[in-house]
């Protein structure tokens, strides 16, 4: 009897083992249930009150809600170190990598191929792929608005512009700024001084000083990652327009307004899509309407032109958000009097990204 019972038990156990494995179907709905690791490459300090801090701030804003563990890698140089840093982050378990500088393009390209399962976001990049999205903000739009503010506020009619390099991005910014300024002040002049560095404080400071002393600019705008131009303006008793970050509080005596970048809503939407499995590679150039780029409110340093500026800014914003108009809708003439964009035309993104190497009327560049 015992033998029989044992045989039966073994048989039944075998049947069980063979059929076992019921898969219970239940969609994993709560995407934020598990913590997701996100790696970020910054080319500077996260406390730089500028470009990098804008990114850091954005992540900080959204990390709790989406249950993220954001690992910031600061001051990552371009080149091999960038690749290594990305490898390290992926090794730590990061599922999404943000490369927040145009200089990481090669690193992104390499890692993108090496890790098809990891999602890459390249800020200010232009190339996208199956697991890589390039994104940027249409900063030229906010620069245009800044230009309006500058144009309306300047008393000397000369606005200084400290810029790092003559990239298309920078020139585009200068052109937008100038178009904005001249839309309220047709005689406004924008004088550009290049520092050949994004964060060389001294160079930027000197450039600003030069613009103020030599050229008589009463407003300094800039396209660098340092606060030097604002400091210089403040020190030398003129006014400034900030870049990347809202530093009005810092320079209460001199700052009119600041161009800001708020990546938080873009990051939120994008990371959420990633968690939901909806990621697909694209090129996002985020306009004003998305909130990624913007201009702060004008301070009283705008002076008498403040009201005029605000009205113009508001109108421009509306047009841009409605999609009926953008900064580089024609006619646009360069500073050699050639009409580059005809009336009734709009510059394509391709043009803006690649062919914007001329200056609009009203721009003077120091060699």
């Amino acid at each position, binding site marked *: *009897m015992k033998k*029989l*019972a044992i045989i*039966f038990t073994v048989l*039944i156990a075998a*049947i*069980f083992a063979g*059929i*076992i*494995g*019921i*898969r219970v*179907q239940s*969609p*994993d*709905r709560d*995407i934020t249930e598990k913590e997701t690791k996100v790696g970020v490459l910054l080319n500077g300090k996260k406390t730089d009150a500028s470009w990098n801090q804008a990114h850091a701030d954005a992540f900080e804003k959204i990390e709790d809600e989406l249950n993220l563990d954001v690992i910031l890698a600061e001051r990552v140089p371009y080149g091999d170190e960038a690749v290594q840093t990305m490898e390290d982050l992926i090794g730590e378990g990061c599922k999404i990598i943000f490369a927040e500088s145009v200089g990481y393009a090669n690193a992104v390209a390499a890692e993108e191929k090496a890790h098809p399962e990891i999602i890459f976001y390249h800020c200010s990049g232009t190339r996208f792929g199956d697991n890589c999205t390039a994104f940027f903000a249409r900063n030229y739009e906010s620069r245009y608005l800044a230009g309006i503010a500058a144009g309306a506020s300047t008393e000397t009619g000369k606005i200084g512009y400290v810029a790092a390099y003559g990239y298309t991005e920078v020139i585009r910014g200068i052109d937008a700024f100038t178009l904005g300024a001249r839309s309220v002040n047709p005689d406004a002049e924008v004088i550009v001084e290049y520092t050949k560095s994004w964060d060389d404080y001294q160079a930027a400071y000197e450039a600003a000083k030069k613009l103020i002393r030599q050229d008589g600019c009463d407003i300094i705008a800039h396209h660098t990652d340092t606060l030097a131009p604002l400091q210089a303006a403040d020190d030398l008793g003129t006014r400034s327009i900030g870049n990347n970050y809202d530093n009005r509080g810092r320079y209460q005596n001199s700052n009119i307004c600041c161009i800001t970048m708020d990546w938080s809503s873009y990051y939120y939407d994008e990371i959420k*899509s990633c968690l*939901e*499995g*909806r990621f*697909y590679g694209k090129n996002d*150039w985020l306009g004003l309407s998305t909130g990624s780029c913007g201009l702060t409110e004008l301070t009283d340093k705008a002076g008498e032109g403040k009201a005029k500026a605000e009205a113009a800014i508001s109108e421009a914003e509306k047009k841009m958000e*409605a*999609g*009926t*108009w*953008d900064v580089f*809708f*024609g006619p646009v003439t360069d500073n050699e009097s050639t009409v580059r*964009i*005809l009336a*009734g*035309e*709009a*510059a*394509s*993104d*391709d*043009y803006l990204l690649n*062919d914007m190497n001329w200056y609009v009327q009203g721009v003077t560049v120091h060699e």
Partner: protein
Amino acid sequence: MSDTEKKEKTKKKLSKFSGEASQARLTLAMHWIFFGLIIAMVVTGFILYFRMNDSLNTFAAKQLARVARSNAEVISEETVTALENLEFLAAQLEAQPESQQELLSSTAKVVHTEKFGCIGVDGTPVFGRGLPDNDMTLVKDALHGTGSLVYREGVGLVAACPVMRQKNIRYVLYEIIPNDRIAEVIENSEESPLGYQMVMNKEGTTAYVFEGIPEAGAAFLQSSEADGYFQDMFRTMELNHAACDFYSAKTVGDIFVYEAEIPQTDFFLAGYAEKDAVAADLDRIAFLVMWVFGLLAVIFVISAIYLVRVQVRVTKVNEIMMEKNRAEVESNSKSSFLASMSHEIRTPINAVLGIDEMILREFDDPKLTGYATNIKNAGNTLLNIVNDVLDYSKMESGKLSIVPVDYDLSELIIELVTMVRPRATAKSLNFVVNVDETMPHILHGDNVRVKQCALNILTNAIKYTERGQVVFTVSYRAGEEGLGAFTFQVQDTGIGIKPEDMDRLYKPFERLDEEKNHGIEGTGLGLSITTRLLALMGTKLFVSSVYGEGSTFGFTIDQFVLDEEPIGDVRATYKKKIETAPVYHQAFTAPDAKILVVDDTDMNLFVVKGLLKETKISVDTAMSGEQGLAKLKVYDYDIVLIDHKMPGMDGIEMLHRLRRESMNPNQHKPCIALTANAMSGARDYYISEGFEDYLSKPIDSAALEKMLMDFLPAEKIRIEKQPELPDPELAKAVAMLKDRRNRFMAG
């Protein structure tokens, strides 16, 4: 291992399985096993069902995904074609800006004017109606230089393409594909219906839900629940560009939810189909499998039950075998008990009678011989009683067997008469013998038992009759197939039997009218034995009686008739026999002969010595097999008488050893076995063991002398002729001895 030890062992073995308690336990265990088996089958069935359903659903889902994909491709074609057309047109316009209106109007012929147009970068229509509400966000991407497909609720799908001048956008061409057109496209496709569908963009926001969907379906598609399912599938979409999965939805039940990329757009075709619509056949497959499984399960259970029952039966059979063995062991022990009892009891009786015989022979003193005669009578009676008891015992244990042999009926009758008549005469009873002279007398049957029964009823008749007569009748009626029915009847004028006592007749140890019959000897076993014997022989006793007047006892028995020769006048034969009864005195002497008698009981040795005294044979004795062999080595003997049952080396072993001793002078001398319990076939048995013959104990002196005469060397025998004297007493004695011996032989 002795018998008792064997018994203990078997008892232990049986205790596990036998007994009501463990039987109940066994049954309970079986029930639990069945219960468990059935549960296991049911659970396995469920698991199989779910697993199978799973697999079938996955299969169906894959199929559905493929269909969704192809449908998506169809949509893609439609929408992308629109875009491609615009791109082509744009290219043409760029190449030939002067033919603008021509190109536009010819295109418009193909597409509805409302749905197609060309606008400037500020939205001013160049051709067509312009965008609805002049909503430039519809062509946002086009304004930045890339063709696009945008879905807007209430509008439909908007394809837009910029017309460039170098790198600047001059115009925007657009075409609006309304909702119903999309639905049309799909519904026209040949593919099987996909249930309820919608188009949605990659951000997961619903683009368009096709018409004709019931509200519940539409609500579901746009619900967060559906959203969850879509998210799930999005992950698996990487490889296939289409995914489908089975879900049990809360609101709409069992469905297949699918997503398919619409290639070259940013949209998905998404929707769900009810399981019943898609997978009706699958249910049939599932049912079939479960049906087969169910059957197999039933077969399995039945086989299990059958196997267990077989097992139980096997166990039972084992039990029965054990019981049988036990019973056999018991039976065997009973047999050996009987055998040893037989031996033990007869040996001292043998001694008493033997020595008594010697007294009768050697002494003339009448007083002494008188006493000796009384002893003899008592001894014989005792022997009879012992035999009765042993017979009865044997019959009770079923050890008594009927041994048919060829015999002469006339001899049987004569022997009966010889034994009975003196008794009747002694009581002054008239003894009448009626024998049918025409009946055959050469028969085949168990004469010993027949005689025993007849003797019993005869002696009873004489016992219970005080005056009058006893009539003994033997009659015959021919039967068929060589049988004859012989009736032995005894009629007496005795005390009779009361009707109410008739039943007690056959009861063992019962004496009727105890007080009245107090003086009558006997154990009361006689009739009981007789009826049993008659039953064994296939017949029974008939009785009739009138209390106070007399009784008639009798039986009719079938015996095989070997010869038809009639018996003739038995009385005459009897008379002759009486007169010519040979008397055995010591018929010979053999003073030169030397024999060895081996027996473990010195009483027996004494008896033999005494019986042979007159023959002048030199008689050596030994008390054991070893002693006997020792003597045999030294002395020369003519015959060796060896007792069979001796402790240690028994008679047979001794004989075998003797026969192997090549140096022994007596190696091949004739050996006679002595045995107290001779059974049928004894002679053959002892001969097969190497003896020449055997004698049964108590040793009959006549038989002993005859045996010696047969086996002593002829030159040593001196026969003395003696006058033959008829001696009725002796004849009777002889007859009784013979009878006794025969009974011993019958076992």
